[in-house]
């Protein structure tokens, strides 16, 4: 099982980078040292009415500075609480959690949709291969500059305000992008379409899933997904997203 820590982190800085999308840099004792692309942390609320830690994917890691960057959307009262924290404040964090993306040296296609985009940033920074990056947004874009520093970036917006009008797969088709490996993270409808595309074209594809979590460490079995084969740990066709995941080979999971 991956090494993990429960610690007090200190907020280095936080800013709203798009409407209701926040970027928070955290100084951590141990987590930054161990964090891998595609892994996540859980943040604990201060307000006593909210008990469960919030899983948030790791967007960037600065191991030299012992810091991690989290980019999250305000989805409820918990994330709204986090968005009000200021530089210097402490918060409880557990991580790194989950498996993360495998790093293969093959021509890669990275597909990110909405708040599924952040975890791909650290991955693209660490991948040592030809990288094609497709980012899909509803309308407002974020993190685009950071990705452009790492490879060729294509943009899709649902309202057509920037790049291709449509979703990430519309871009792949329109630009005729091909790849030996696909890394994807985004909403379930997008991931289903990506899996279908991957099967059609026989491309090895890794997708990151999310589900409501409680413990975050694999104990409660709250955040499972259906697997095509019986899982080695659960001995049923369920995999724990927080532990066997959040990144799965597309063909492993029944989505």
């Amino acid at each position: 099982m991956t090494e993990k820590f429960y610690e007090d982190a200190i907020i280095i800085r936080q800013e709203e980078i798009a409407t209701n999308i926040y970027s928070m840099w955290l100084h951590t004792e141990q987590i930054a040292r161990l964090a891998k692309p595609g892994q996540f942390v859980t943040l604990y609320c201060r307000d006593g009415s909210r008990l469960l830690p919030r899983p948030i994917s790791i967007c960037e890691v600065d191991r030299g500075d012992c810091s991690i960057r989290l980019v999250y959307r305000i989805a409820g009262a918990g994330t709204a609480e986090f968005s009000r924290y200021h530089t210097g404040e402490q918060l409880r964090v557990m991580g790194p959690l989950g498996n993360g993306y495998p790093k293969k040296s093959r021509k890669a296609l990275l597909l990110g949709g909405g708040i599924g985009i952040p975890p791909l940033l650290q991955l693209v920074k660490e991948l040592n291969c030809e990288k094609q990056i497709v980012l899909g947004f509803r309308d407002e874009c974020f993190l685009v500059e950071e990705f452009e520093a790492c490879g060729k970036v294509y943009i899709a917006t649902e309202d057509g305000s920037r790049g291709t009008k449509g979703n990430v797969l519309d871009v792949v088709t329109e630009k005729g992008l091909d790849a030996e490996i696909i890394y994807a993270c985004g909403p379930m409808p997008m991931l289903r379409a990506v899996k279908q595309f991957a099967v059609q074209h026989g491309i090895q594809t890794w997708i990151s899933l999310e589900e409501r979590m409680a413990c975050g460490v694999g104990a409660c079995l709250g955040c499972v997904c259906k697997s095509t084969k019986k899982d080695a740990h659960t001995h049923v066709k369920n995999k724990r997203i927080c532990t066997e995941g959040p990144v799965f080979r597309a063909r492993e999971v029944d989505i």
Partner: protein
Amino acid sequence: MNMGVNLAGISLKNPILTASGTFGSGEEYAQLMDLNKLGGVITKGVANVPWEGNPTPRIAEVYGGMLNAIGLQNPGIDVFVERDIPFLAKYDTRIVVNVCGRSESDYVEVAERLADQPVDLLEINISCPNVKEGGIAYGQNPHAAAEITKAIKAVAKQPVIMKLSPNVTDIAEMARAVEAAGADAVSLINTITGMKIDVRKRRFALANRTGGLSGPAIHPIAVRMVYEAAQAVRIPIVGLGGVMCAEDALELILAGATAVSVGTANFTNPRITEEITDGIREYMLEEGVEDIRELIGAVR
């Protein structure tokens, strides 16, 4: 100063246990805290065969608590005996195996398989609100609860703790029924059936519609029911329900619990059980309590 208690003939180094379903079989928490500091680990419920559990979402947060509808997913007794028991046996803590089933024969089969295992106690889950057959069907009817208790006692080689449901009119009646049927202890309360609706999507937050409410929200109900059970039976009581701190655990002990299980709080802080044990020790020092057993049921 003594923090040890005797639970149905089994000595615990301290009264703090982990509540079934919130702690797996300990392995997931082993690198975040020290299992050796626990009075015991109550494992995730195990059945005679693997169970897939319910569809997702299985979890919903609510004010001061959470709803879960895992549906007792488990790998089955064979894997449990091969993998989980040997893991726990490496630690200096008591092993309490939570047993679930859909029928009397399911429960009996698991109890029989565990007879020759290095297991200290069995906790029988007859109060899971998230499975159709078995579970709560036994937990809301004193006669059914008594029958299943007798059947398990007939084969069990370890002391048997019957885990009771709070979803009843009279918890004392349930406790008396299983005591009369030979239970060595009772544990209460399991979760309270609750529901959350997503008002924007206009659908149930859980795929199972209802789920079990746990967390500090239910603590005052747990204290009341432990007290009522303690006035009704002589067998020891494992108290649980929303314990977040030493004071919460002490309330259950003062109400009549011999040991206390900590559940949802593990999700808010993986080291909470150790902090609770330390907090109880501090309390005993400050209050001049030599032996924790003086506190069991001390408020009447």
